[in-house]
């Protein structure tokens, strides 16, 4: 049948079972928006800024196993979306972004609202396309979804010039399959390597399992948990890996890295066999690679992306493959051989770990006078019984959320780990809430981050999204202030914000409920009230201790064991 390019776009998205499309209209996408209005399978969510459209699609993808989709116009629509695209790229999130482009005939002539979308987005996408003919739209969209969700996932941009979306052409259905000779991600791990890895693990006396966001993305949490419990090995997770192994399990030593726990960082450094799963040894995780290399240990690294292996740390047993498949193979080999680790041989290691754990590095001084930010997160965990979806912004509050909210399930913790994008939390929560209607969704943010996408409170009103925003308001760009206090002689250059709005009233102005909390005794009541208001967005503005810092801390460039545990260590 003969259809226009825009009709084909909508059909393809329907075929991909897209239920929500986050976007913002503009000149170059008018034909697509016109078609959108003629159907009701795909629901469009009108954000207030294109950055939020991509973050919302990203939050949708992170909290489900599906691809998030955004639609933006050419020029500023695309440049606004770039922060969202780069955020998804750094955390390997499957998102497809469809952008309008100026008409083919004027591309390159500095037309109104023209940017080189393919050029601008190239370094922060898994792949991108400029579609030159309507006849190529269906196969391109098929490729885009396939690329976004297979292998190491990532964002894919499909740029469609306005005339192409108007052009008529023969449409003979959405392709069922797609084959690309240049793209064939490895799925199965090398059996010999897997056997070798198991041999090392069973011989280990000081083993450690270190998991990253890959475990969550590959939906391998269940298998990983089974393996760790079967072996009885300690587990640590990165910021992205929270929920990949239950946070309340005794085997879990908590997050590692710059703001990781004492026990996780010490165990990571002194283990003799390290099993790294779906993770990339990044600078915030292992500190200085030279310091990390001072202790000898055998490293097994499982990852879907060969370029993540031996990038920063030399690996002894690399295994490239889909984590769920590789872990499944490991479990099957263990089951069929009956081999098990020797608990008695691990006892001295566990004794050492418990000693480290005994330092209780996450203890903080509770106060009757001023609200402690850690207390807010702990209370949120208590009130939601550890079962909420938590989206976070970036800064001190993000670290406290990661340290004090114990995630037992994957895909409950949604944050910008790699790029560290302030403003991510609220729009991401919109995507989460739409994907999980009725589920408790909280945003942990600060007065700095929330103002970077606060306009989305308007979107939340339009689509009746009952998100609970917990803003840890300390009047400072807290993480910047902390670094200035520690490393820049207490010179708080531009990290103090004056003239903050009355956030409770601001929330009310948007049509929501706003509550200001400044007494520690009111914290729990306020959070309970917020979640009791099932159909309303509640903005909780917590006035917290402005001097509180995130501990433990490994200074940039230092070794993992060189931790600052409290203010006394400074």
């Amino acid at each position, binding site marked *: 049948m003969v259809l226009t390019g825009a009709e084909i776009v909508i059909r393809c998205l329907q075929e991909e079972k897209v239920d929500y499309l986050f976007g913002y209209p503009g000149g170059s996408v008018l034909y697509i928006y016109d078609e959108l209005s003629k159907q009701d399978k795909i629901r469009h969510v009108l954000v207030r800024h294109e950055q939020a459209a991509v973050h919302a699609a990203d939050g949708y993808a992170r909290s489900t196993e599906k691809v998030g989709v955004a639609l933006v116009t050419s020029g500023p629509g695309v440049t606004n979306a770039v922060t969202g695209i780069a955020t998804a790229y750094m955390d390997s999130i499957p998102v497809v972004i469809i952008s309008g482009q100026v008409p083919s005939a004027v591309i390159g002539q500095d037309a109104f609202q023209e940017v080189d979308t393919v050029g601008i987005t190239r370094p922060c996408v898994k792949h991108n396309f400029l579609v030159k003919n309507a006849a190529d739209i269906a196969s391109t969209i098929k490729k885009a979804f396939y690329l976004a969700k297979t292998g190491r996932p990532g964002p894919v941009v499909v740029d469609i010039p306005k005339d192409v979306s108007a052009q008529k052409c023969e449409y003979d259905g959405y392709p069922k399959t797609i084959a690309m000779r240049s793209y064939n991600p490895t799925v199965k791990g090398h059996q010999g390597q897997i056997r070798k890895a198991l041999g090392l693990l069973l011989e280990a006396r000081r083993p450690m399992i270190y998991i990253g966001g890959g475990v969550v993305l590959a939906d391998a949490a269940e298998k990983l948990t089974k393996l760790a419990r079967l072996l009885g090995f300690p587990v640590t997770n990165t910021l992205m890996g929270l929920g990949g192994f239950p946070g309340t399990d005794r085997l879990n030593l908590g997050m590692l890295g710059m703001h990781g726990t004492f026990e996780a960082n010490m165990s990571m450094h002194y283990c003799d066999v390290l099993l790294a799963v779906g993770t990339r040894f990044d600078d915030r995780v292992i500190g200085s690679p030279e310091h990390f290399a001072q202790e000898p240990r055998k490293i097994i690294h499982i990852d879907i992306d060969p370029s993540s292996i031996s*990038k920063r740390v030399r690996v002894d047993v690399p295994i490239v493959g889909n984590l769920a498949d590789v872990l499944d193979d490991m479990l099957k080999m263990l089951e069929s051989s009956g081999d098990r680790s020797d608990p008695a041989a691990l006892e001295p290691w566990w004794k050492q770990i418990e000693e480290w754990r005994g330092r209780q590095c996450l203890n903080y001084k509770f106060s009757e006078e001023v609200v402690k930010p850690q207390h807010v997160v702990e209370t949120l965990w208590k009130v939601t019984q550890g079962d909420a979806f938590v989206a976070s912004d970036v800064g001190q509050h993000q670290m406290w959320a990661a340290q004090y909210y114990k995630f037992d399930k994957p895909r409950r913790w949604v944050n910008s780990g790699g790029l560290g994008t302030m403003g991510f939390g609220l729009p991401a929560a919109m995507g989460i809430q739409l994907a999980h209607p009725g589920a408790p969704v909280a945003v942990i943010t600060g007065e700095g981050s929330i103002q970077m996408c606060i306009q989305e409170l308007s979107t939340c009103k339009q689509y009746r999204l009952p998100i609970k925003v917990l803003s840890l308001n300390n009047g400072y760009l807290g993480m910047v202030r902390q670094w200035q206090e520690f490393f820049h002689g207490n010179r708080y250059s531009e990290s103090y914000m004056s003239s903050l709005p009355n956030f409770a009233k601001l929330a009310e102005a948007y049509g929501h409920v706003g509550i200001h909390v400044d007494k520690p005794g009111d914290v729990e009541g306020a959070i309970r009230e917020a979640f009791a208001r099932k159909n309303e967005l509640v903005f909780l503005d917590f006035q917290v201790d402005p001097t509180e810092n995130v501990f433990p801390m490994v200074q940039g460039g230092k070794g993992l064991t060189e931790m600052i545990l409290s203010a006394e260590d400074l």
Partner: protein
Amino acid sequence: MDMRHVISLLLENESGALSRVSGLFSARGYNIESLTVAPTEDASLSRMTIVTRGSDETVEQITKQLNKLVDVVKVVDISEAAHIERELMMIKVRATGKEREEMKRMADIFRGHIVDVSESSYVIELTGTQDKLDSFVAAIDASLVLETVRSGVCGLGRGDRVLKI
């Protein structure tokens, strides 16, 4: 230790593929000594030769990152084994009076060809390894050189080693 490597790749002959490769090198701070690219006998594929320098770890990352590009079909470090490298140079030199004869002789010694002649100049075409072309440039009087253009290195493996899909 930074070693010289010659990396050959087959990539989809599509607009933008070249900038994905060159963008990767600049974004990740890898160096490019030379880069050549042209379509192959299969018009849907281009073959690229990149000469780069780096430690073993860096070059391993370069090949992995190149492989990760969706447009890249195959990557081989041909300098890992016996291989052939050639580069083309065209050099325009001043050729007047007795220098005219001398320049002709030098071109012959290096097995070059004179492909353009004017009253006062020659264009000499020379093919060979980078070293050979460098030696020619060093061997002639620098003040006589009007302009040079070099293609960059292209190469392939010797014997049974074939880069094909």
